[in-house]
């Protein structure tokens, strides 16, 4: 039976939730506001919140100086490519671990996760040398593969957890009705797993989009995505906060919009398995 909640309690909860939400969102909001300020206003002390002369100058400068479309395309290619490639490998892997587990399944899962515990910089030099040998430096394909490998443990784990929620009896019933392995996966498992696959896809797309270590280290001019675009606006000598904010806003805008429209799937993806 659900607990009864008083109106007052509801109000307090709502205010608390909105406050925490606002606090988390504030850095992004501040970045967006700063992108419309002049460099002088951006560093004003005390800081100016809304009462300033709004300007689009920073966006004009950024668009004039950088080839935004190329950075954007590289981001879409690398994030999209690595996520799809990851799903192609992870779906069969997670399926077999969830429905046909062996004695070593748990160990394999833990071992996969353990690769995430190594600091990325620890393997930078070996990967850099391999990339030189294979001619993959500053290539979208090379970066797509590396980022896919980085995120693969998370994809497998998410899908595995989700597949485990699907009752095995349903698959057994399908088998008793004469379904082959192919039709069992295609017509029974997949429709039930679509929400899980979708949320995995979205979360990994976001992770790949925001990845900044490998994208900064393995690219130069041709394959550099939006993370490199943002980094190019930091300056050792001179004011840059407003232009950097404009570049950041342009870099996060696509993923922010995608996140907004898919928040239901995202929340579901992040919380599945929580209620048992």
């Amino acid at each position, binding site marked *: 039976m659900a607990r009864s909640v008083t109106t007052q309690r509801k109000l307090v909860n709502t205010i608390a939730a909105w406050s925490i939400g606002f606090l988390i969102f504030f850095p992004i909001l501040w970045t967006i506001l700063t992108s419309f300020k*002049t*460099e*002088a206003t951006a*560093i*004003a*002390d005390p800081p100016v919140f809304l009462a300033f002369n709004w300007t689009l100058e920073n966006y004009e400068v950024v668009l004039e*100086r950088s080839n935004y479309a190329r950075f954007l395309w590289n981001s879409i290619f690398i994030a999209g490519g690595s996520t799809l490639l990851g799903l192609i490998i992870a779906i069969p892997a997670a399926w077999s671990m969830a429905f046909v587990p062996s004695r070593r399944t748990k160990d394999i899962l833990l071992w996969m996760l353990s690769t995430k515990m190594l600091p990325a910089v620890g393997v*930078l*030099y070996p990967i*850099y*040398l391999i990339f*030189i040998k294979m001619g993959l*430096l*500053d290539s979208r394909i090379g970066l797509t593969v590396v980022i896919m490998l980085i995120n693969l443990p998370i994809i497998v784990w998410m899908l595995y957890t989700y597949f485990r929620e699907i009752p095995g009896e349903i698959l057994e019933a399908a088998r008793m009705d004469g379904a082959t392995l192919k039709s069992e996966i295609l017509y029974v498992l997949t429709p039930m797993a679509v929400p899980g696959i979708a949320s995995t896809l979205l979360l990994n797309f976001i992770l790949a989009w925001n990845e900044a270590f490998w994208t*900064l*280290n393995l690219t*130069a*001019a*041709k394959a*550099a995505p939006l993370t*490199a675009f943002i*980094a*190019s*606006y*930091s*300056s*050792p*000598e*001179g*004011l*840059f906060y407003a232009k950097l904010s404009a570049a950041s806003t342009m870099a996060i805008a696509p993923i922010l919009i995608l996140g907004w429209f898919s928040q239901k799937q995202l929340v579901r993806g992040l919380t599945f398995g929580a209620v048992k």
Partner: protein
Amino acid sequence: MNLTMPLRLTSIAAILAANAAFAETTITIATVNNGDMIRMQGLTEDFTSKNPDIKLEWVTLEENVLRQRVTQDIAAKGGQFDVMTIGTYEVPIWGAQDWLVSLDDLPAEWDKDDILPAIRGGLTVDGNLYAAPFYGESSMVMYRKDLMANAGMEMPEAPTWDEIAKAAEAMTDKEKGIYGICLRGKAGWGENMAFLSAMANSYGARWFDEDWKPQFDTEEWAATLNTYMDLMNNYGPPGASTNGFNENLSLFQQGKCGMWIDATVAASFVTNPTDSTVAEHVGFALAPDNGLGKRGNWLWAWSLAIPAGSDATDEAKKFVAWATSKEYTALVAESEGWANVPPGTRTSLYENEEYKKVPFAEMTLNSINSADPTNPTVDPVPYTGVQFVAIPEFAGIATQVGQEFSAALAGQQSVQEALEKAQALTAEEMEAAGY
């Protein structure tokens, strides 16, 4: 049939030859985001119109990322960059390792002898020039003429540290949020340690003696750090231990600093009325000294160099020669005005009558000329570099020392403790490095 075949072959050969003639070579240039570099990117049409067979690709990176990326690329022979923007710290080290292509064979009209001697000395290893300076900078005092006048004082053109302390005291008005002096406090070899190493030179201190023994246990270093702490604790802004160039620039532009000792390149920012509220009140003076023959100013030059792994060396040389030529200077002057010309590299620029009218031109030249990277300290040292020591280990050591000094400024430890820790960690690192 017999006739058409040779004809076809001839046409194919002609097409191939034409393609070969117009084959484009792409050179990739790694650079930092600062005003002069961005301006150059906007003016490259002049270069590409004269060299239609060369295409330019730019990679703009944050300074520390650039340093790490080019080091990684050059050491692993990645060949990602054909031209790289590096400073006076890297050139002596990389030049000695044969990582850079010598630029001694740049065309005669490029006029190597026109490069300011102090800058050229910093970019030369064993008689070979390994990088072409794009812009050079030193450090100097930028101060508020109006605040000095209100206090009934006048800033000497070449002040001593005592005079700086008196001026800082006179200009400080904490109730109005005006702090007499703003200096770098943020930890880092290129942050607080650039300032403090240069300041130490004027106190007769040095990083190492001639046997590479660290010198933080000397009276000279104690005097340097005590003066710095006194200035900052009495007349500096709150939270100074996290202030670097940009933070101090911001404070000065908002009228919160009476004086700021930092890079000469800042002069064009603080006198720019668009961003600076005190643009018309700024005066300049040489970095302070202590009467020992060395001033507390540094020397730095962002320079263009070609890594030994580049497969487009000839094209890269053409670009480097163009970007650092007298003609490029004239091109910037024509399109952006003399105040925006990359400063501090050529004697001819400072002989130009138009450039002499720029308010900070003379002080910049005097500051650069008073720094000598090959003879930086009062007592002899085994290294080159004014605000750094040109050995590979320096960046790591100086950043750790910088953290100790920054912690002392934040009040977390005493000057004595900071110096003792600096001495111990430098000795340990140098021993591990085989010195």
